[in-house]
C-alpha cells in the first residue's frame, strides 16, 4: 500500500473514502475523512504540489475530498446500486434509496426497528426501578427537564399514571406498563436485575469510582467519631 494518498490512482482514493463512509459507526464528517487521510497517508498534503495529476493547493484539500465524494455518489447512481451516500446533519452516511425504503417497511424486523434513545432508556430505567415516581423526582435524578420524554413514553404506552403523590401540588406518579415488560422481554418487574447484580458487572475500576470508595470510607470513619461524640 502506497503511503501517499496523492500517489494513488483517483479511483483508489475514491474507494478508500467510500469504504470509510460504508463502515463508519456514525455519519462521518468531511473533516473526519480529511483527518483520517492526513494522519494515515504520510505527507498527503505535502505531496500535493508534486503530484502530476492534480495541481491542488493545501487549502483546497477539503474541497478535493468533497469532489471525490460527489463522484462516488454519481458512480453509485450510474451503476444502479439501490443505495447511495447522503448528507445527514453535515455528515455522510449510506442509506437505501427512498423508492426501496417502501420495501423495507414491509420487513417485519423493520416494523419495530426504532431504537430507544438514550434519554428514553434512562428515563424508563428510573421509572422502572423507582416507581411510583413523579416527574420532578425523575428530573432530580436525571438532572434535566424531562417533560417531553415522559410525555413521549406515555404516548408510546410504555409508562402510565399510577397515582398522585401526597405532596404539595399532588403531582402524578408514573409506573411502567405491560407494554414495557414486553419490550424488555420480562415476565414481571421482579425480573429486573437488582442493582447488586449490575454492580458486579460494572467493576469499580475507573479512577473516579476509586475516589468514591475512598471518600465513603473516610465518611464512615468520620462518622464513627461523630456518633461516638453524640452518645
Amino acid at each position: 500500500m502506497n503511503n501517499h494518498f496523492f500517489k494513488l490512482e483517483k479511483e483508489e482514493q475514491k474507494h478508500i473514502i467510500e469504504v470509510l463512509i460504508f463502515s463508519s459507526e456514525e455519519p462521518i464528517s468531511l473533516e473526519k475523512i480529511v483527518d483520517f487521510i492526513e494522519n494515515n497517508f504520510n505527507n498527503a498534503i505535502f505531496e500535493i504540489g508534486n503530484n502530476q495529476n492534480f495541481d491542488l493547493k493545501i487549502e483546497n484539500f477539503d474541497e478535493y475530498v468533497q469532489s471525490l465524494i460527489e463522484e462516488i455518489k454519481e458512480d453509485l447512481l450510474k451503476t444502479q446500486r439501490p443505495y447511495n451516500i447522503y448528507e445527514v446533519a453535515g455528515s455522510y452516511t449510506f442509506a437505501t434509496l427512498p423508492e426501496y425504503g417502501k420495501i423495507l417497511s414491509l420487513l417485519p424486523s423493520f416494523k419495530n426497528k426504532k431504537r430507544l434513545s438514550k434519554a428514553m432508556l434512562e428515563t424508563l430505567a428510573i421509572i422502572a426501578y423507582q416507581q411510583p415516581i413523579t416527574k420532578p423526582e425523575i428530573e432530580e435524578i436525571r438532572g434535566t427537564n424531562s417533560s417531553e420524554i415522559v410525555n413521549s413514553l406515555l404516548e408510546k404506552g410504555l409508562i402510565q399514571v399510577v397515582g398522585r403523590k401526597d405532596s404539595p401540588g399532588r403531582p402524578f406518579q408514573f409506573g411502567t406498563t405491560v407494554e414495557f415488560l414486553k419490550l424488555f422481554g420480562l415476565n414481571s418487574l421482579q425480573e429486573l436485575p437488582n442493582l447488586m447484580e449490575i454492580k458486579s458487572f460494572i467493576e469499580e475500576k475507573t479512577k473516579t469510582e476509586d475516589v468514591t470508595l475512598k471518600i465513603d470510607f473516610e465518611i464512615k470513619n468520620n462518622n464513627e467519631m461523630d456518633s461516638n461524640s453524640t452518645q
Partner: protein
Amino acid sequence: MFKIVLPIFEGPLDLLLYFIKRDEINIYDIPIARITDEFLNYIRLMQSLEIEIASEFLVMAATLMEIKAKMLLPKEINTQPEADVDPRKQLVDRLIEYQIFKEVSQFLHKKIIENQYYYFRDLFESEIQEFSSKLKTYRPTNVMELAKAFYNLINKQNDSIREIKLNELKIEDAIEHITSLMKKEKQISFKKICSGHSLQYKILFFVAVLELVKQKKIYAYQSDLEHDIFLFSTSNIMNN
C-alpha cells in the same frame, strides 16, 4: 541491573499450566510436592513485590497442600472409600478442561486474525429515518441495557456540569437543603439525601450534617461502619 519480567497469569489454573508446560510435566502425573513449592514460591514472590494476590491463588495453595498431604498418607492407612482415587484427579480434570478452552481460544485468535480486515456495515439508523416517526413500537431491548442505564445514572460521579455548580453551592445551602428535608421528615437516611447527587455534593452534605450535629439541630446515628447513617431532627430544627 536486574530486570524482572513477570508473566501475567489469568488465575491459579493458568499458573499451574504454565509450570506444567515449562517443565514438560505429564499432566496425568503431576509431581505435586514440587508443583506446590513452585506455586508457593510464586505467591511469596508476589508478596515480596507487594503485588496484591487474588484470593483464588490462596485457595489453590490450600488445595495443593491438601493433595500433597493426602499423597503422603500410606495406602494401607487410608481406608476411606475414595482411597483408590488419585487425590490429584479432580485438579487434573479441571486443568485439562481449562486447557481445552485455552486451545479453543487459540483457534478463535487465529480466526480473528483471518477475518480482521472484513468490516461490516455498522450504521443502519438512516434506513429507517423516513418511517421511524410513523413507527409506534420500539425494537426489543436487552434488560441489561436498562439496568445499566439506571446504575450509571445513580453512580454518576464525574459530571463536569455539576462540578461547576459546586463552586456556586455553599455549605449554607447544603445545610438549608438538609434542614428543609428534616422539617418534612423527622428521620432521614444520609444515603437518601445523597441519592442522585454527585460526589462533590455528597461531601458537602456530609460537612453540613457535621455542622448540624454540632448545632444540635440533628442527631446522627450509625449502627456500624457498614450501614447507612440515619439523621433525626431535634426540636432545635425549627429555630432558624
